[in-house]
């Protein structure tokens, strides 16, 4: 099972991923991003992120 994780060091909190998420699975606050369990790992957020702050990783 893969899971989307985000890299806090890279993320600019621009909200572009939120705009393309088909499942409203991304919670963005002032300085944090959370991928909720609505996520289906469709990869939209990974590909749209201007700076590649999101990636799909194997769940541990």
């Amino acid at each position, binding site marked *: 099972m893969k899971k989307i994780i985000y890299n806090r060091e890279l993320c*600019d909190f*621009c*909200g572009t991923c939120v705009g393309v998420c088909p499942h409203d699975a991304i919670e*963005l*606050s002032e300085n944090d991003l959370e991928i909720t369990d609505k996520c289906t790992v469709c990869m939209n957020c990974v590909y749209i*992120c*201007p*700076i590649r702050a999101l990636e799909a990783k194997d769940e541990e």
Partner: protein
Amino acid sequence: MKNKYDVIVVGAGPAGSTAARFAAQSGASVLMLEKDREVGVPVRCAEGVGEKGVLTVLDKLEPQWIDQKITGVMLYSPSGMEVKVDSKEVGYVLNRKKFDQGLAELAAKEGAEIITKAYVYDLIIKDEKVAGVKVKHLGNEYEIFADIVIGADGVESRVGRWAGLKTRVPMKDMETCAQYTAQNIDLDENYCHFYFSSSIAPKGYLWVFPKGNGLANVGLGISGEASKDKSVYQYLEEFMKEYFPNAAIITTVVGGDPCSLEQDEIYADGLMLVGDAARQVNPVSGGGIVNGMVAGKFAGIVAGKAVQEKNFTAKRLSEYQKLWHNSEGKKNKIFYKLKEFVYNMSDKDLDDTAKVILDLPMEKRSILGLFKSAMVKKPSLILEAIKVFT
């Protein structure tokens, strides 16, 4: 901060501030909430506007809002042909930080309250109607009630989603963008510069917008469809290395530009969306400042009337979408068709178009002429282009 207002505006960009200004002007009590510590920052924008458009919403442009006056565009074809086109209309590269703060001050002068570091995390819904917002501010959580909430929360557009509106942007229509503001950019500063090429900016373009004295915004946007193999940030780095190796970077920003068709509905009971949140950018240019302000003005005026009439139903607020559609929305439908065409042109098509324009004397060149040459095999599209460029 009170616990009830007539109107709450979420987001203090140009669309939000303009909505707040016009709602307050009509006598409504208005609260505008900005999540960041400072209005106008970060500037996720190339900062270009046309004078004519801005002056439909503002009486004047303050000199401190303007970094550089622009008199035309310079286009670079994939093979490197340079096509200069002088514009009939004057343009400006703004200082968005000062501009956005100026617009917020105009709203404040009409009586709107403004709070920064105020993060809206949900709507209050009562009897299936929007009735206010939930906000975090300096470690505390508040519920603030309002008869009308105006969502001006940008590309994320979460306010609309919470109210049940479909604000998601298809991948192909979201332009993912990266931009440097950099020094030592040696180009003619009277022109905005655009680079078109599948290797520089696939399904998009790269811009250099001068800000004066060697400073410029250098950025690009590419379709979400074109960013699977390489990030837009990497495209930017490669371009800088090749074209401006001596540049010194002052600011780095990234963000998304929703270049989609207009949403079906940008209002609901007690709610209106404006600006990027309502997907109101010009899909072909990606420009959204003036459109956001025009929409903000209409939303503010309709909110003011709704407050006076004490009628906050979706039906009452639908007037806003009609006003927007008749002013800019219907043009955006045409701009979207032009975008679909231009973004699917091959490098050879782009070079061929550049050649045709280069053969024309300066005084015969125009942006409409450019589109006409590009779409020579699509006469129906030319007729539509004439509608939006004249």
